């Protein structure tokens, strides 16, 4: 008995003392902050932050490799608590919500086979890509719903996932497990940055729309009588619905699948109807907007592209100001379109809606006279976007025609040709002059540059120059400009890109002359600090130094490189809807530059030549002719009425009901037959 007590007591003593000593010897310092942060995190170990669990993220937060709000599962309170522990401020983070991208469940879609195996999308996806004929569609076995760590997804009655937005934390588990990548995280910013890829369910009309409006969704909303939602869906991609509803050349209607039955849907008239309803109720319906980012962007040019770029930039959460030389915003829309097609109050209404989104505007501010790009950068704008016009916009001005365009060192060919003559400012060139043009350029223009003071002239030609050689200039064939570098109001260098090899070289240049008659869209950003050599303290950026580069290309020309590439001259003035698309791409480019993200598009982006699964035959849809737009007679037009009167609500509803609510290959079949459920492969 005594021995037993001695034994246990002794052992306890030895072990206790031993461990105490060991804990001193083997002490490892752990930053108490890591423990605090780990305690604040939810401990779900969901991996939504991209790291292996909460303790790994806690270490990354303390090491500064991860943001205080990097935890997607926790709410803003936790981010705040962590920010307090870390003693740092919090940049607003937008919630990402899972968004299912398929609209026809397995029961309603064409299928290749009946599947009765493991109830898991990943399993059926191994069998020839799943039971659906559509290669990207939802397989409906609910893997996302089962894997969701927060119980935010349920499978709805149509066999498609339904997301409970209150429970969804944006951890991205569903996106990772979905074998079809059809459920994705979505936020306002992501939707604005989005270019459609072959993994998205897009409809023929949506692909044909330069702005990529989700047409079948808004027509569905019109059919249900929910005009506000229709306008919201349109404004997701188009801030001018009332205007575009009147003047669009509507490439979408050429692609409408309804034409295989009778006639295409009156897509644009329905847009006009929804937008007119918004105007009639006198209150702007606005799409969602991301939280303030605290960054400032200036847009020069208050035309369709500039206003669109500003609208989308504001929606991403940046604070944006538009500078317009004229007293009124609207650019070409004010003068180029007949009033009986586009009354001015309609234009004013859409511009008012853009301003209401948080866009500041300053009119009567001419670039080069009242403002300069360099001044704006010095005022704290982190990016300046030049959207001065698809053509020589001075022609549209009522005053100030003689003021030359003032992007530093950039000139139009007409300024060179006419420098000093009445209506044009005198001009002096110096140093190296780069002309962006073609081999057909008149030798007289080269001579003219020499007369104005150019010491060295390079003519950049995008294709092979042939045997033409205009005058005493060095011809560089197959080259384009990728970037401009400057200091203050002077251009200093350009980055030349070899179009076949992609090799870049930086050459000194004082002037760039655009022979195509327009100044390209350019995003100016302060030059980043030069990368510091190993060990040296980080260099501070040179004050007044800037760089300018074009926004990324539209999908049709996404392989092109450099300024004034193929397709660039068509971005904005051939149709207002193209200018809107260019404005959104500019906003996306600015956002990417502000956050140091790479410009450029994924290789699977949907371009006109991309093969997209499609159907060219429509079955089981009854004939139903298109509704006609009622027109004013000559007398009414003469009295100042609009030519097209617009749909009444009954007509609009009838027309909206004609829509087939297409998916990639699905569409609504109104006539059900017993054999219809079986596969229609073809």
């Amino acid at each position, binding site marked *: 008995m005594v*021995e*037993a007590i001695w*034994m*246990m007591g002794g*052992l*306890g003593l030895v*072990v206790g003392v*031993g*461990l105490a000593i*060991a*804990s001193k*010897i*083997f*002490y*490892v310092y752990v930053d108490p902050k890591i423990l605090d942060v780990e305690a604040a995190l939810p401990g779900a170990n969901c991996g939504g932050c991209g790291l292996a669990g909460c303790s790994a993220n806690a270490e990354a937060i303390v090491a500064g490799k991860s943001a205080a709000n990097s935890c997607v599962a926790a709410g803003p309170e936790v981010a705040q608590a962590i920010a307090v522990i870390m003693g740092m401020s919090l940049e607003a983070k937008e919630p990402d919500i899972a968004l299912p991208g398929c609209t026809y469940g397995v029961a309603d879609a064409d299928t290749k086979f009946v599947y009765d195996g*493991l*109830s*898991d999308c990943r*399993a059926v996806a191994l069998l020839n890509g799943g039971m659906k004929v559509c290669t990207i569609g939802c397989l409906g076995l609910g893997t996302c719903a089962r894997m969701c760590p927060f119980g935010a997804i349920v499978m709805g009655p149509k066999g498609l996932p339904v997301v409970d937005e209150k429970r969804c934390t944006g951890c991205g588990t569903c996106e990772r497990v979905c074998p079809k990548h059809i459920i994705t995280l979505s936020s306002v910013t992501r939707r604005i940055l989005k270019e459609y890829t072959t993994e998205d369910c897009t409809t023929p009309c949506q692909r044909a729309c330069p702005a990529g409006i989700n047409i079948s969704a808004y027509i569905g909303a019109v059919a249900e009588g929910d005009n506000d939602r229709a306008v919201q869906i349109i404004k997701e991609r188009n801030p001018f619905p009332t205007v575009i509803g009147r003047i669009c050349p509507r490439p979408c209607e050429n692609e409408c699948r309804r034409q295989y039955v009778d006639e295409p849907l009156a897509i644009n008239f329905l847009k006009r109807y929804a937008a007119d309803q918004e105007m009639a109720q006198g209150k702007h319906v606005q799409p969602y907007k991301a939280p303030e980012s605290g960054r400032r962007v200036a847009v020069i040019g208050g035309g369709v592209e500039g206003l669109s770029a500003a609208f989308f930039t504001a929606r991403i959460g940046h604070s944006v100001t538009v500078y317009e030389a004229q007293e009124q915003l609207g650019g070409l829309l004010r003068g180029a379109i007949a009033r009986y097609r586009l009354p001015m109050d309609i234009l004013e209404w859409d511009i008012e809606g853009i301003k209401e989104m948080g866009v500041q505007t300053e009119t009567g501010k001419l670039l080069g006279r009242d403002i300069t790009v360099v001044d704006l950068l010095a005022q704290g704008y982190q990016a300046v976007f030049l959207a001065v016009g698809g053509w020589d916009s001075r022609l549209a001005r009522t005053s100030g025609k003689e003021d030359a365009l003032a992007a530093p060192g950039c000139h139009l060919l007409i300024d060179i040709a006419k420098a000093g003559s009445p209506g044009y400012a005198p001009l002096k060139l110096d140093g190296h002059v780069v002309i962006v043009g073609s081999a057909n350029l008149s030798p007289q223009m080269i001579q003219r540059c020499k007369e104005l003071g150019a010491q060295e002239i390079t003519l950049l030609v995008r294709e092979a120059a042939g045997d033409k050689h205009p005058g005493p200039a060095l011809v560089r064939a197959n080259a384009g400009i990728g970037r401009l570098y400057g200091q203050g109001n002077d251009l200093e260098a350009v980055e030349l890109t070899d179009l076949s090899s992609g090799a870049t070289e930086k050459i000194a240049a004082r002037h760039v002359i655009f022979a195509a008659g327009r100044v390209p869209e350019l995003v100016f950003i302060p030059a980043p600090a030069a990368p510091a050599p190993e060990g040296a303290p980080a260099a501070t950026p040179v004050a007044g130094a800037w760089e300018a580069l074009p926004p990324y290309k539209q999908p049709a020309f996404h392989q092109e490189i450099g300024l004034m590439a193929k397709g660039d001259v068509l971005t904005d003035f051939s149709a207002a809807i193209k200018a809107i698309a260019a404005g959104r791409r500019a906003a996306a480019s600015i956002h990417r530059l502000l956050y140091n993200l790479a410009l450029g598009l994924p290789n699977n982006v949907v371009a006109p030549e991309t093969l997209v699964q499609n159907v060219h035959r429509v079955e089981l849809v009854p004939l139903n002719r298109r509704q006609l737009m009622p027109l004013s007679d000559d007398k009414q037009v003469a009295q100042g009425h609009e030519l097209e009167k617009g749909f009444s609500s009954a007509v609009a509803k009838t027309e909206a009901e004609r829509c087939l609510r297409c998916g990639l290959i699905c569409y609504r079949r109104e006539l059900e037959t017993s054999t219809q459920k079986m596969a229609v492969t073809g």
Partner: protein
Amino acid sequence: MGDLFLFMISCILLNNILLIQYLGNCPFLGTSKRMETATGMAMAVIFVLVLAGVMTWLARKFVLVPYDLVYLQTIVFILVIAALVQFVEMFLKKSIPVLYSGLGIYLPLITTNCAVLGVCLINVQEDYDFLQMLVSSFAYPVGFGLALILFAGVRERILLARVPKPLQDTAIGLVTAGLLSLTFFAFKGMV
């Protein structure tokens, strides 16, 4: 030598600690949901058991038997193993951080694991000499790991199957464990 090899096989398969002796069922169900977890646990058990086997064997031979305190052996073993695991954890954290992060959370889980204690007790009950003890302390946890990893593989596949609601998760896990145990009984026919 041949005897020792046979002895090792019998420890791994014939007397499998999990499926024949039914020791350590808690981690068997708890850490078998994912393959990585199961592998980590198996490695940690092998590591700890070899150390614990040696320590407890020495403790019995040089402390308990000479002082005639064999009746205290169970409680002493628990204490020794717990202290050992704590010490090893501290030591690894300081000296071999790679191994520490690899074994990670599984080390403290083993502190009071009945598979570990069970093997230590078997070692002394069967009166193994040092070499036999070493082999059994290595072979039993290898058997533990084998069963655990097999079971984890099965459970990962069960996740893909349509399991009736009342049977989901632990319930179907226990049924599976039973079937797996039956298959291991077939090894009895080897001798």
